[in-house]
């Protein structure tokens, strides 16, 4: 996007600025990745070693999955950047239809 470009008139200065911005973004990506690994570990340990009832553990690991996917979508897939209004609309519309499908299959159709 033209608006995201920097125009100091000096390409050398611009590239320094952009490299810095990219490196900064990469740091956020590493933090996201560490969080994702951590959430995965918590979920596996809770199921593998934890002594919890299914009523607690199922909502808990589902919540961990949702948080991890938010990291993936907003950082790894750049949905936190500008110009992602249409992608958000498409994705959330798909998710809405999908959740209704899951609800329907689990309650009305099969039981």
């Amino acid at each position: 996007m033209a608006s995201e470009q920097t125009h100091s008139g000096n390409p050398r200065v611009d590239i320094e600025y952009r490299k810095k911005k990219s490196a900064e973004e990469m740091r956020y990506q590493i933090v996201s990745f560490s969080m994702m690994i951590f959430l995965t570990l918590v979920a596996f340990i809770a199921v593998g070693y934890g002594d919890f009832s299914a009523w607690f553990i199922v909502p808990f690991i589902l919540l961990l999955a949702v948080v991890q996917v938010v990291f993936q979508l907003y950082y790894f897939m750049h949905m936190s950047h500008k110009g992602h209004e249409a992608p958000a609309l498409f994705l959330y519309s798909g998710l809405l239809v999908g959740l209704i499908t899951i609800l329907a299959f689990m309650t009305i159709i099969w039981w």
Partner: protein
Amino acid sequence: MHVEDKFTAETWPAAPEKQTLEGKNKFLGFWLFLGGETVLFASLFATYLALKDKVPNAEHALAKDLFELPIVFVATMLLLTSSLTSVYAMYHMKNFNFKKMQLWLGLTVLLGFAFLLLEIYEFNHYVHEYHHTFTSSAFGSAFYTLVGFHGGHVAFGLLWIVTLMVRNAKRGLDLYNAPKFYVASLYWHFIDVVWVFIFTVVYLMGMVG
């Protein structure tokens, strides 16, 4: 800016994937496709949840008999790490470093391939040790359709990335192929998004019972 323009690291735009009309269209169209994929996978998840452990008699293995956490954990780490390596590839793409981008894409492909091999081993194990097959029960059909569809996506993603790497090996980076690499990396992340729900809903919830 035009598709055929030659660039240097200094003149390379900040968002190369959206500089051309074709790039903008690819970006928009691909996210529409991902919205559709969400519906597709949600319906497979719905079917799996409805048919989980629905077997004709007590001789058939149930989810808690089949699944083993270590192998699923290794598979998860492989795919999660491959998601990070493809982030690195796009980082180098934005910095106009074609060689490093290719290197990180290559690592992504290796990790994805290892994941696929592990899944093949896993399915083979279920079929031969537990006689849990596609046609053995409603549970079997739903399981292999959901997890297999994801595995199919991994296989397609690998072919896609390898094709892009080979076809553009001598071209270097330009505004013609930058959107292609960007969209392929989005697809790869989406595969990981689906896997997060598979390991949670299928494997971990399967172990819980």
